[in-house]
């Protein structure tokens, strides 16, 4: 049952990504509209899948790499759909949808989890912790993609290459605004996610903080984003430097998400999450 919804979501998201790429090349509005609605259908399937898994496990479905990636992809699409309402920037989908579909494809190649989850994961704190962190991650992904688009467009304008790429990408100010806006919104989510995480740790492990590798790396990520936000607000960083910095921040975020969970061990690692499930 869950498998079916997962595959439907994967199929529609891939299909929509294809459409968005065709839109980027052909610049036909109806292609965008079709892809947009296909993406919404994919998103609905994805939501049903997550809801079903949540109901089935009784805990947030992020306990192994497969489901964490799928949840990541879901939150990116979620953020994109909200952003589309605000910015109405059609070209954004051509970058975000393929990225989300890419994560979803990796997710589909991972082994799925069997067996029941440990009782300690069935806590509302965990759900809030994971939910806020992932929405934050989704926002940071959008910021990352906007930064890449910014740098590409900036390069075109700076070097006077005003061809097909130049005409398809939006203005520098727009992409800078999206980058700023998504980091500005993503940062509180990350903060709340970390706080609820430590409250949850106090509830089930008896300590707020125990220098787990993922905790440390999350803190580093948080500090980097805090620095970027500070520079933007206080020093007036914008444009190229802010874009590069947000790409650096996102790389650290991805390392925290993938590296710390897979290789560095600790109780956050998927190995330990899954091992405890048996």
């Amino acid at each position, binding site marked *: 049952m869950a498998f079916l919804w997962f595959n439907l979501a994967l199929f529609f998201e891939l299909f929509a990504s294809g459409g968005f790429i065709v839109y980027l090349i052909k610049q036909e509005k109806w292609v965008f509209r079709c892809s947009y609605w296909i993406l919404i259908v994919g998103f609905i399937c994805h939501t049903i899948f997550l809801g079903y898994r949540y109901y089935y496990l009784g805990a947030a479905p992020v306990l192994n790499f497969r489901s964490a990636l799928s949840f990541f992809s879901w939150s990116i699409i979620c953020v994109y759909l909200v952003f589309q309402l605000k910015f109405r920037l059609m070209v954004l989908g051509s970058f975000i949808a393929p990225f989300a579909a890419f994560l979803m494809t990796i997710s589909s190649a991972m082994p799925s989890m069997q067996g029941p989850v440990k009782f300690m994961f069935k806590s509302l704190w965990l759900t809030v912790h994971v939910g806020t962190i992932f929405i934050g991650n989704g926002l940071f992904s959008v910021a990352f993609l906007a930064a890449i688009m910014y740098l590409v*467009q900036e390069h075109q*304008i*700076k070097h*006077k290459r*005003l*061809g097909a790429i*130049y*005409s398809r990408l*939006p*203005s*520098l*100010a*727009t992409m800078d*605004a999206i980058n700023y806006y998504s980091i500005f919104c993503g940062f509180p989510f990350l903060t709340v996610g970390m706080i609820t995480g430590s409250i949850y740790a106090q509830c089930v492990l008896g300590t707020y903080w125990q220098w787990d590798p993922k905790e440390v790396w999350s803190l580093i990520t948080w500090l980097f984003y805090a620095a970027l936000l500070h520079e933007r607000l206080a*020093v*007036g*960083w*914008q*444009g*190229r*430097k802010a874009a590069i910095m947000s790409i650096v921040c996102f790389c650290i975020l991805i390392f925290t998400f993938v590296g710390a969970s897979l290789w560095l061990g600790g109780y956050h690692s998927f190995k330990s999450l899954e091992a405890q499930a048996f």
Partner: protein
Amino acid sequence: MKIISIGMNHETAPVELRECIATEPGNTARALASMRDVECIREGFFLSTCNRVEALVATENAAEAKRSMTSLISVLGDIPQEGFSSCLYTFEDTDAVRHIFRVASSLDSMVVGEPQILGQIKGAYAQAAREKVSGVILNRLMHRAFHVAKRVRTGTGICESAVSISFAAVELAKKIFHILEGKNVLLIGAGEMAELAARHLMVQGVSSMAVANRTFDRAVKMAELLKARAVSFEEIGSQLLEADIVVTSTASAEYIITYDQVKSSLRRRRRRPLFIIDIAVPRDVQPEVNNLENVYVYNIDDLKGVIELNMANRQQEAVKAERIVEEEVLKFEKWLKTLAVVPTISSLRDKAKSIVQSELKKSRSAMGELTSAQEEAIQTLTLSIAEKVLNDPILCLKRKSAGGALNTYLDVTRKLFNLDRYNGDT
């Protein structure tokens, strides 16, 4: 009925010839009036702009119409016919339709895709329609031409990209700042080009404008023209802190804006993007300024490069536009052909109607007293019988109107129903 188009444009005629006709105001009215007077011209349309003269007529007698149009142009421009007949082009029927569609869609313009021509054609058509010189065919043709122009404009990128220096600069500014509302502009140098660029920027809603010039007098004059502030040449450094867009156009031999100057202002500008348009030759801005963060310098050659690129794009889009024109020409031809069926169909209907009336008159006395409702019923009955009988032949004719065998069908119909000898008074 034939559609004939006679005219000259920027390619066929030199400017000395075109201006003879274009400069005279009221020429269009005179042309339309004389078109009405010519016997063989059924409908007419006359357009005269600085780049072209177009006369479009619907006529039964093509040769005669051409002759009178040529002499009309010669009278209007006060030029002997031998002087310009080699500069004229003449199109007939399909070619004339295609020509007017291309003109309206700005495919025949000097700058392909320029938008003014459509407005000019609309104006000229409104005049022709007002003076009732245009009729069924030209009304339809011109409305189709407007439709084609709209399709071309929305369906292709032919009007999209800028092809003048100042437009290209505004477009670039938009790609950097997204909206220009609330931006500050600094003009250095009070030349004509700078003024043009400034006007384009003002249309976009920039919030303030400052003008600096070596001779302060001219700066003040220009500032008055543009409703801007005049600042002295020494203030440029401090003005750089405020400005978002700088346009330089001085005749100065050395750089007005240097690398160090801009670099030192960056921090105090809080790294806001700065767009510098340098249309001066020799250049006013040190080229290295472009290497600074969030600073973009475009000189005259860069802008010319943009325009050339856009021109090439337009040429590519023009191919798409020609296809649209071709489609619409085919549609119009189809309509024209149905027009050929119209007289036959209407005389067919007329004949049936008059037969019905005369037969009714004959039989009326035998029917005795009738109420008005009964009378009406008999009228309707007889007429609808006649119409039902004719319905299939008429439909058949309409269907055949697009095919090649139309004339045979028309001929047979006229013979079968004896339409040519029938004059409505049998």
